[in-house]
């Protein structure tokens, strides 16, 4: 932007469209309100004052998938629930992101071997952007997952989205 520097009046700044749109998106990642198991308790802790997910602009937990950008799959996903999750994901407007929180959502967790109704990873149902490790993950871990997601959004482009590696 060297050429255009200092060429305009005050209160005008020049930037790339990508940067501006990504900046808007990553500072207002609104998650959807739903928790499936014990990880949801940690997610609630993230929403409360001590950890305060609002610092990252992601504190507006929406009660409808149509208003949400982010789906935090916090807990054990069983087959009965997996179909509902797919349906909720389909109802979210693009761009939409998914965080798989904890061992169960990542790969079945403690139910991997003998859990006859547990889906062995929510990535078998919806594409996942960020995996957060832990059982359950501490609130700081979820915040780091959110920051990773923000880094990922920062790298996306309006013209051409990078291919997902699901």
């Amino acid at each position, binding site marked *: 932007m060297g050429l255009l520097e200092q060429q305009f009046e005050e209160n005008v700044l020049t930037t790339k469209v990508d940067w501006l749109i990504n900046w808007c998106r990553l500072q207002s990642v609104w998650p959807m309100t739903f928790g499936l198991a014990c990880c949801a308790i940690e997610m609630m802790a993230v929403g409360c004052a001590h950890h305060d997910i609002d610092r990252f602009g992601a504190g507006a937990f929406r009660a409808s998938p149509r208003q949400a950008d982010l789906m935090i799959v916090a807990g054990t996903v069983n*087959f*009965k629930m*997996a*179909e509902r999750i797919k349906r909720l994901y389909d109802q979210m407007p693009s761009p939409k992101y998914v965080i798989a929180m904890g061992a169960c959502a990542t790969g079945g967790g403690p139910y991997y071997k003998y859990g*006859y109704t547990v*889906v*062995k990873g929510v990535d*078998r*149902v919806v594409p996942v952007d960020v995996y957060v490790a832990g059982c359950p993950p501490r609130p700081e871990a979820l915040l780091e997952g959110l920051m990773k997601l923000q880094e990922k959004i920062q790298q996306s482009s309006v013209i051409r989205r990078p291919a997902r590696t699901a």
Partner: protein
Amino acid sequence: MDFRGILDRLKARQAPGLVGSDEPRAADPADKKDKGRAGDPFLWVEAQALPRFLELCRDDERLRFECLIDLTATDPSKDDPNLHVVVQLLSLAFRHRLMVKCTLPKAAASMPSSVPVHRAAQWHERECGEMFGITFTGHPDPRHILLPEDWIGTPLRKDYVFPDEYHGISCK
């Protein structure tokens, strides 16, 4: 009333289907291999007579087991030809408890429903039905309760084979 008292009362009333009793005992010091038996005392009752047995337990003025705490089943082993159905009873009036067990052949796992006697048995029998494949004849609403309605197999039987996929989602 303690277990012996309950047993004597049931014998005096000629309880239908009462087969025998099993009580915990200490290990025999002379026999080193004998470990005794821990746990609670229980009664063996014939599965086909269970509702009538529960009805007598409920209506007898000295027993008054008016509360069905639990009705569940166990699969003891792959080699065992029988399932065990376990019922826990509680008398709120006299504050005594009773455990009742029935054996049920796996090949023909069918027994009369206890819902006409205890309405609390409805959900318990639905769960037993889907998890162990027991048919409770006369149950008013024999749908699945936890599993999806189109689930194949009975997961808590020891010889259960895990499915490969469910509605396109891989289970492996």
